[in-house]
Structures are given as C-alpha cells and as structure tokens.
C-alpha cells in the first residue's frame, strides 16, 4: 500500500493554493489526509501534485455572526466537536464531528475534507444538508456560494470544479432559535474505526416548549448512506410539521422516507435492511430532536 510518486507543495495562503492549482495539472488538495491517504496508498488516487492545505492558517476558524456561523475548511473535527459556539447554536454539527473515528483522526481530519470527499456515508454532508448550509467555493475568479442542496451532485462528486477549492461552510442559525430547537444525529455503527452503515440527522423547532404537546413548526430530516448523495426528505419533514409529533405523523414520515431512500447493497447492510432502517431512524431522530427541543 504505497502511493505513486508526486510532487509536494505546501502553500500558506488561499491565493497561493489557487495559483498552484492553476499551474499544475493533476493536482489534488490534501487537508487532514484521513481519506485521501487511503486512496493514494491504494493507488486509487494518483495525483501528480499534492497541494497541502495545512499551512493555510486562514482556513481554520469558527466565526459566529449574527444569524449564522461560518466554519473554515481547515477547521478540524476536534475543533468543531469542542467549539462552544457550535455546540450552542448547531450542536448537531459538534455531535457529528465527535462521532468520527477517535481522537487522533479528529486531531487532523477537517470539515473541508469531509465535504470535499463527499462520501455518501459521511457525517458532515448529511448534517450540513439538514442545516441547509452554504458552501463557499474559491478559485482565481473569486468566491462563489453554493447551497448544499446543489453541492453534492453524484456519488462522491461535488460542485467543486477544476482549480476550485472549498474555503468554508456557512450555517444559518436563525431557523434554530435556542430554547425551542432540538437536534439529533444517530448512527448505525458497530465500531469507531468504520463509517456508519446509516446515519440520520433530525432537527425540530417547536412553537413553545412550555405548552402541552408543542407543535412542530419546522423539521429537518436527512440521511447518510441511504443514497448516493446526502438524502433530505422534505415530504417527511412536512408530514410532521404542524403536528405535535404524533405517532401517526411519525409513521407517515417514516413511510415517506423509506420510499425516498435508494441505498446500495453492502456487506452486513443490504439495501432492504437500510431502507427499513431509514424508517426506524426517521422516528428515532425526530423523536429525539423533539424531546430535546422540549427539554431545555
């Protein structure tokens, strides 16, 4: 398991990265290297040039602003998991980061890498989809913002084009007022050294948690590994919105979600099984999110 030869570059600014990408054909960016190294070691990825983002300090930040929070591409899983700002505003993102592997992977793995990798089982793509984030893509011609719903286009393929890079992700926090929003991230995963067979992100905002049986004002429901790209099931969200998350509503949402899923077969998780679990996870994720919305 040894990589093919390549030339190594270690720029220290985004500008430099962009110009290196333009200069060299068959260049690949490396962030935490927690996914890319495996592909390179197996010669599944064989770039001629490797551009290392670890020296680009300007990409490691968590910036909490009015109504949104922006996270730099080179922010590590560890930073995200431990960030007070994130934990306070969009705790599901911290939870998703915390559930990636163990401490030494989280020390170096990054948000940008997780998005750039676009693994259908990846934690960030799913959670950012639930949060309706915007991804910032940068190139010589400047920044462009792409909504997550348009960002993941096919199996492990994203909107990031030739000579472009991800510089950050912005999550709107307005839809998730603290005190009446609950979030849940659930995984079907036996060991930390693997990817989940399935995971679900559920978000619920209620009208008034102090009332009896508060009503769901808004719900979000997304899945990882239930199709080639992160799966958001808006019809299932609608099914529970306006209800007090009754069993019937959950049941309906689960049915819809199962219908929308189009998972691939894999060892120990055939498509049939995953589809069934999409139903179970729909109920569990929304239920947990709802309970958390009420319990603050």
């Amino acid at each position: 398991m040894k990589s093919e030869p390549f030339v190594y570059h270690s720029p220290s600014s985004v500008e430099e990265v962009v110009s290196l990408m333009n200069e060299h054909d068959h260049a690949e960016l490396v962030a935490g290297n927690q996914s890319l190294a495996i592909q390179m070691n197996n010669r599944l990825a064989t770039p001629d040039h490797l551009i290392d983002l670890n020296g680009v300090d300007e990409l490691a930040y968590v910036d909490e602003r009015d109504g949104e929070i922006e996270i730099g591409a080179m922010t590590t899983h560890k930073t995200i998991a431990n960030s007070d700002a994130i934990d306070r505003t969009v705790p599901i993102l911290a939870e998703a980061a915390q559930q990636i592997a163990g401490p030494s992977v989280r020390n170096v793995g990054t948000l940008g890498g997780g998005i750039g990798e676009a693994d259908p089982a990846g934690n960030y793509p799913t959670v950012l989809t639930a949060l309706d984030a915007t991804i910032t893509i940068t190139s010589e011609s400047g920044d462009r913002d792409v909504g997550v719903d348009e960002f993941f286009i096919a199996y492990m393929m994203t909107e990031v084009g030739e000579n472009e890079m991800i510089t950050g992700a912005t999550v709107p926090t307005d839809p998730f007022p603290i005190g009446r929003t609950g979030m849940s991230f659930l995984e079907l995963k036996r060991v930390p050294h693997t990817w989940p067979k399935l995971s679900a992100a559920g978000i619920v905002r209620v009208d008034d948690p102090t009332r009896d049986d508060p009503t769901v004002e808004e719900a979000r429901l997304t899945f990882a590994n239930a199709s080639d790209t992160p799966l958001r099931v808006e019809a299932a969200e609608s099914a529970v919105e306006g209800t007090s998350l009754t069993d019937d509503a959950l049941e309906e949402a689960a049915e819809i979600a199962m219908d929308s899923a189009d998972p691939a077969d894999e060892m120990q998780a055939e498509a049939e099984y995953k589809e069934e679990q999409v139903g179970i996870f729909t109920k569990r994720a929304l239920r947990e999110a709802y309970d958390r919305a009420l319990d603050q």
Partner: protein
Amino acid sequence: MSQAEESKAERVKEVEDHISNQPTPQNYVGSEVRRKEDEKILKDHREYVQDRNPPDALHAAYVRSPHAHAEITDIDTSAAEEHDECKLVMTVDDYRDAGYAPMLCGIQEWAEWPLADGKVTYVGQCVAMVVATDRYVAEDIADLVEVEYERLDPLVDVMEARDSDNVLYPEMGPNAPSNVAFDETFELGDPDGVFEEADHVIEKEFDWESRASGVPLETPSALGTCNMNPEDGEEKFHVWSNQQLHTWADVAIYAALDQPREEVRVEVPLTAGGSYGTKHATVYRHAVLTAVASEMVGGNPVKYVEDRIEDLQGGDSASTDRHYKAKIAFNDDGEILANDFWLADNFGAFPRFICTNQVLKPLAIVNGPYDVEHARYEYEIVCTNKMPQTSYRGFGTPAHSWVWEMLMDEAADVLDMDPTEIRLKNYIDEEDMPYKTPSANVYGEGDYAKTVRKVWDLVEDEKDGGLLDPDRVEELREEGIYRGSGSALVLEPGLGCYDYHTRQFIPRDELATYYTPENRDFSDVVTMAEPLEAYIRTDGKVVVKISSDDQGQGHQTIASQMLADELGITPDDVVVPQQDNLDVASDVGSASSRMATVMSSAAIGLGEKLRGQLEELAADHWGIDTEQVEFDEGGVKQLSTEGVEPVDKRHAERLEQEFLTLTELVHIDKMMETGDSHFKPQAELKTYAYYEYPDVAYENREYFEEAMIRKRPTYPSISFAANVPIVDVDVETGEIEIQKIYSVRDSGRIINPMIVEGQHHGGIMQGIGAALQEEFGYSEDGQPQSTTFFDMMLPSIENLPELEIEKQETWSVFSKSGAKGVGETGIMDIPASLAHSVNDALKPLDVTVEEMPMTPNRVRSWIRDAGDAPAPADD
C-alpha cells in the same frame, strides 16, 4: 472407589506430592509474576520481524489476481524488467525451472505452487513476485507486469461447489474430479438405531460462514537470505519470519525449497505480533519466496511485509466457513440420545496443510459436554474461489459447540423445558470422569453441572433490582429492547495429538479399515514430545531452551517461573533465549494450547532430572553418598558426612563448605575450580539436562489407546467455561448489545493468574467479534468484501462489555503439572454462549439463531421472517 476414580485420585495426588515433596518452595508458580517480555518491548529493544532492515536488503511486492477464477493466458514481464530499479520478476515458471517444489497441502495428491500456475482461483492470489530497491518502487514495478486473464465462472457457495461440474482442480485429490477435496463419515455407536427409536428427532441447518479468524495486528512477513557461498556448516538459506510453529512447520519451508532441514535456518523473533493460530499457514509462502528471490538476485536479503489489504483479501487469513445439517435425538424426559452432524466446510481455493484438520478436531468433543453415546460425524472439505483457510484459535470447534447449543435450545423448546434444565440433565456426571466419548477421546475431569450452578449463583443478584429484574426486563421489552440470558457450558479441548494430523493423507477409501486395531499397532502411533533443555551458566544463571514460539503468550515468563521454582532461584536467574529451528529439538510449538501445559510439565521433569544430577555432582565432589546430600534453594547442601574420612587436606576443605551454589557447581562440573579446566562436552556435564515430556495422550495410554490407533483426534486437556451473557437485542435495528458476561472458567492448574486472565480477556473479545461482527464476506462473483479494517470490524474498545470472571481450578488428571490449555479460551465458548442468550431474548418472537455472525442485518431478517409475531403468551 471405581477404578477410574482411583486413578484420578492418584493423579491429583501425584501432582500435589510433587509440590509438597519438592525441596524448593513454590514461590512463583501460581502467582502473578510480572512478564519478562514487557520491558524489552516497551523500550523497543525487542525486534519484531518487520524491524530488521539489513542495509543490502531488497524489497518484494506481489502481482496479485484481481479475479476469483480465471485462466492466465499471458504474463508479460518485459516492461517491468526494463525498469531501472527492477531486480527480479519471478513467475511460477521461474520458480519451477529453478528446481523448487510446490507447497504442502493438507490432502493427499494435492499441491499448491506458491505463485499461480496457469490459472488463478481466488482474488489476491500471488501471480508474480517483484523485487526492487524499496517497497514503493517494487509496487511501481508490479503495476508494470501485464497479466492477461480469461475469466471463468467463480464458485463461492459451498453447497453449489460440492456438486458443480465447474471443478477448480479437476486433476487433484482422491475424489478427482470434484470440488470435494476430501470427505469422511464416522459412525460412532449405533446412531441410526437410536434415531429410529427416539421420542423426538430435530434436524436443522446452520451457517457459520463468517470465516472469522485471528487477524493479528502484525501481518505475515519474511526476510529471506540465500548464502551463495556457504562455508561448511553454514546453511544455504536463512529465513527470518513470523512463522508460527517454526521448529515443526519449518517443513513447509524446507520442503518447498527442496532442501534438507539442515540447510534452512528459520529464525523467529522472541515475540511475534500476535497469531492466534493463523501464522502457521499464512507465512510460509513468503518465507519460501523471499528465500528463492534472494538466490535469484545473487544473495541480497529480500524482505516482504504483507500489507493489510493483501492480507484480508488474499492472505490465506480467513478461517472456518461451514454449512451444517445437524440432528439430535432425544426422549420425552429430555435425555439426549444421539447426534448426527453433517458439515461442508468451504476451504477456499486450497486445502492448506494442517488447516484441514480443523474439520477433524470437533470429533474429539463430538458429544459436547453431554453424555451422549451415539453419534455420526460427517464432513466434506470443499474447494471454492474464496481464499484458502488458515487455522485459528479453537481449530474448528467454535462452530461445532455453537451448533450443539442451538440444538439444545431447540430441544428445550420442543419439550417446553427450561434450557438450563435440559442441559443440567445431560451434562456428563463428574462421577463418570474420566469419560470416554463416542469417538474414544477422554475427558479427564470436571464437574460441569456444578460449574453451571456456580455461574448462576453469581448472576443471582441481577434478578432482584439488577439487569435481570423481571420488571426491568418487561419495561425494556416495551421499548423494543429484548433482554436475554442463559447459561451455556462449552468445552475447550487442547493438546491435540500429533498422529491424527496426517489422517487425510491416506487413500480415502481405505480410511475405514486402515486405522483399526487389526491393522495398526499402538507403536505405529506417531507422537510428539515436548523437549526442554537447560544448562547452568558459569555465573549460576540457568539457560532454558524452549522449542515453541511466542506470539504474546508469555513463554519466557512461564518458563522462568517454572524453572525458578524447580531450582529455588528467581525468574531473573533464568535466561530464555530465542531459538532457531536448528538450535533446538522439534516441537509442535504454540498450538492447541500446548505451551503452558506441556512446557510446565516438561519443566517439572527437567527440574527433577537436573536436581538429581546436581546432587550426584555435589556428592561426588564431597566424596560422599548421594543420600547424604540434598538439593536446596539454589544449590546442594550437605546433610551429613557420617562415615567419611577426608583423604587429604583439599578434601577436608571441600567438606567444610557445606553448601554449593549453582555457580560453584558449574565450576566444579567444568573443573574450573581446580584450575585445570578442560571443558567437558555438554552431554557429559551434570549441569546440563535434556528432557522430553511425552505426548500427554501417549503417556496416558490406558485411556487414549483406542482413539490413537484409530488415528482420531485425542485432546486430553479439556478446559471449560460456563457463561451467562446478558444481552440486549434492539428488535427494530437488530443491534445486539452485551450488558455483561458472567463467566466461570476452568483451565486446570494456573501457573500465572495474570497471564491466564489476559488470555481469557483476549479470547472473550475475539469470541464477541466472531459472534457479532467479524466477517470475511464475498460477493457472488467472488470478490472479497472485507479488505480493510473499515469492513473487517475487529472489536474495538467500545465493544468491551462488563466482564465478571471467576477462575476455577480443576487440575488435569492427565498432564504432569495439572495445567490445562488456556490458549484458545473465549473464542471457543463465547459465540455459542452469546447465541444462546440471544435465543432467550428473542424467544417471544419465535426467532432462533441459525447463522453467524449475528449482525444487525441478519437479526432483523430473522425477525422479519418470523413476521414480527407477537409473543405467544409468556408465563
């Protein structure tokens, strides 16, 4: 007292006598002596195989097959050979033309070339070896070798393969042309008659297809060197590798190299990075090929380290893969009368040397822990396009014990009996020990029923406010969490006899008649004794030479503890150096849980012998009778000098020194103390001793003679464990969570409780892995699905449940030290135990376990198939 009881009592007394009569106190045996191995490892002073990097070494990589089954129509090595840094590209033709031989297989008339010969029969099979200046470049060059394949239909399913016309090796084996490489039927007692008469017969099919295996963290590796111009006495080949059983399985290396044993030095590290039985068959291919490559490149050492993906996809690293059709017969009162197990074991592309015995070992416990007199045991070794199997801890018994326990659950269900009750009814009575099984193996000792009761006593508190509180269990069930528990007692046979290993080399149709008392005498039985050698150094330290290889079990520590107590010294005074295959007598090695058991027994014999010799030496020195001296801690003391008149002044001086230390004794022995030292040959030294502890079954001939003449597996060490795992099944997701495992574990006399516990912990975890998550899966076209640790889900620290283990010591009546095997603990019993608890948990849903591993998707499919049937009114 019955004769059996008498002899049992005698044995126990013998061991006890040994301890009480021994002149030196038992300071170390039985206590938690810290391991000798650790400091070296922790300081990185110990060399693992991969750590050796001679400056002139070259590095190898393989071209491996991407297909499960294909004809090789062409191998073009020209582009590879043109690469500047290419030192060698070797194909099977190069290997064969140079005069080397195929590797050993486990079945007569079967042969496997170490590189693919004309076709490939599994993904990852080695097709060519490339040697270059470093591993990175070697992989570059391997990519340049162009192999053309014509694909053939792959065979993955064992049942399909057994009667397919698509035969992998039409010309090989006794059944040729057939994918059933070997098969046998054992009729023991009168199974047919009993099945006919019994009140009930149940028959079920079971799949243990996980191929769960050891997967040690250190991969197979070898550094082979050819000495191009050997001086007299120098070997032609030197192989440094993590070959398990290196003083015995070295035959797999020198036979392929077509050399006498003396020309192939096999050196192994003092500790290899784990093996659990697997590095027996996973390593020798590389040992052979690196040695050959070294010769071909002119003598540079050639190093090969298998990478993890190679290992998981085609490294011969998987194990048991069986389909069972199993029956038991029983009466209305729950008495089990007979069992009939048929199994087809998917051995993959080649039935590997010795690994084929994994289908035979279960015969030694054909009846499990139950008193059942009639049995049929039928096996087929089937070849398919999966990778070949290696051996693994348990050596084929975990699946057998699991099938037994599942059938017991079924029988309980049929009779509406409590599952523990039906087991208690059928356990072999302690009074009947030693107990002869239908296959003529003998269980020496143990009170199974009492052990099961003991584990339930431990669990008792859980029933009131604890994990098994009925209210809590009910509450959980309402939430969809089905909690279950149950006690299974599982046997852990060890110390397999050597003789049966070659059973499958005999013409198959002659088997039934060949090994019978009419045709075979006991003296024809081939056994392997445990050799042990020791000598005293001039500084008084004792050097012990052991032939068995360590992969983490703590050989140095165990040997040091034993010899320390035998000689009344400390473990620090004992030196246990590394031994190459040529430095010591051949020994089966670290297999079949032998080390602690037979090595400890050998140490007792060696201690006795050495003490006697030292007494003679001292008596001689003092010019007195041996009766007048006695071995004491660390030397020999004078008891009296009665009737002795000093002949001269020097003699008088000698007599005045009433105690001779080991250092003084060695100086006397070598005549150094007189100044006229003329070193004697080792064999004449009284401070040197060689001892062989006979094969345990051989030594207990009166019990094992029949089985040995019949060339059946005898396993005279029967450890056992009774477990109560408390498991939670999430019936919606199919996930199984183990809340706690209670376990009473009996492995005979304990030499080092700390090490024994360590074996239990590790083995239990491997059992959990095999039961719940580990799997070498294959797609229909024969592509392996677990090629990284992301898919081969070895248990992580997060999978560790709470364990409450109680150690019990029923000393072996057969082994001299009283110890029994502990090396295969856990993996043998935990899968069966967990499945039993899962059956209990899912009883309300009418679901029983028929397939391993119990992964969430499987559990869910069982529940789905049962139609989510609501509980039949529980009592």
